[in-house]
């Protein structure tokens, strides 16, 4: 499976109600009602969407150690288009047709403008993933790509209690109670009752 073979559909949809795209112990991604969406297909099968709307993104990048908690939670509203790959069947039921008013509310004159933005994001994501050409998301997990202030994308992969988040200046990996946090200040490896902290 090669990332850059993903293709965008040509019809713009909208969220008919708020949709929870991810909800785990540590992470939450939710898009509000009337958000725009375009399907991302692989071999004609919908494998995800590029969304834009009132998106709430929360992630508890906190490591609990016997000396106290380290790290801060991330909570932000994503206003730019973002990519969500993963279980898409449930999402399809929560999407409906869009109209000009929905597009104008998001600042687009026509569907093509949104599709162009979505394609840019997908290309950006695909190009950055070229080094992982054999990487796939055949598991039940979800992959998210959020544009950041540095002009790059923050990547979130979540599969049950397993989670990987890569953003500017930080990497957070969690598998149940096992966590690794790399921040500008620390590298922390934590397991139940054990913790290794390296100050950088």
């Amino acid at each position, binding site marked *: 499976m090669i990332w850059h073979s993903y293709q965008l559909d040509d019809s713009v949809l909208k969220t008919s109600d708020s949709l929870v795209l991810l909800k*785990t*112990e*540590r992470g939450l991604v939710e898009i509000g009602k009337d958000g725009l969406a375009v399907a991302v297909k692989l071999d004609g099968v919908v494998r995800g969407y590029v969304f834009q709307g009132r998106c709430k993104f929360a992630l*508890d990048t*906190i490591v609990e150690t016997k*000396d*106290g*908690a380290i790290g801060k*939670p991330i909570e932000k509203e994503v206003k730019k288009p973002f990519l969500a790959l993963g279980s898409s069947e449930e999402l399809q039921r929560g999407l409906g047709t869009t109209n000009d008013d929905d597009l104008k509310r998001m600042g687009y004159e026509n569907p093509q403008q949104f599709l162009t933005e979505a394609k840019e994001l997908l290309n950006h994501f695909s190009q950055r993933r070229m080094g992982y050409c054999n990487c796939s998301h055949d598991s039940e997990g979800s992959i998210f790509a959020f544009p950041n202030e540095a002009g790059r994308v923050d990547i979130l992969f979540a599969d049950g209690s397993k989670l990987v988040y890569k953003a500017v200046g930080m990497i957070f990996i969690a598998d149940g109670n096992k966590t690794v946090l790399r921040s500008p200040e620390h590298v922390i490896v934590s397991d139940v009752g054990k913790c290794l902290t390296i100050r950088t």
Partner: protein
Amino acid sequence: MSEEMKEEMKKLKEEIANMKTQLRDIAEPSSRRGRGLYIDIGSPVQDYVQDVMQGVAEGVHGELERSIFIGPRGCRILKTAEPLREEVEESADFNKVAGLMSALGNEHRLGILNELMSGGKYVNELQEKLSEITVSTLSSHLNVLEEAGLVVQEKVRGRYLITMPGRAAYKMAMKVTRFLGAGNEE
């Protein structure tokens, strides 16, 4: 016998007399000079040894002053006391310190920290433990602690966790209180 020889003999006799005195001191050490061996090794060497011993004593005394804190409950080795004191003097932001102390300065907030010392808790769990205060008061106290960086709230699950500085501040408060309590008892 020449005068020179006579002089030499006299010196030798004096030396023999000295040696006899020293031997007597060795044989009877406690009679005149207390316990231990006494040998006259000459004043320059004695002065040197005394200087060295004084230097060592001053060094040890200075080191003890820097490294050992003597409190009402005995003494504790605090090897880093000196560097820490310098660091605090150089970088102390008293507004920040006062803010931290202010966040700690409430019995309910200390109670919250005490509950969180055993692990993360949801608001309702804290409410059960601190039933004497209302939910809104509890929420207000949690905000103060969070702003001071002593606790952190998970955004997804909503639990409150005590942070590393929070744990250190709580322990410090407890230690100082115990210290003052012990001082008052005396």
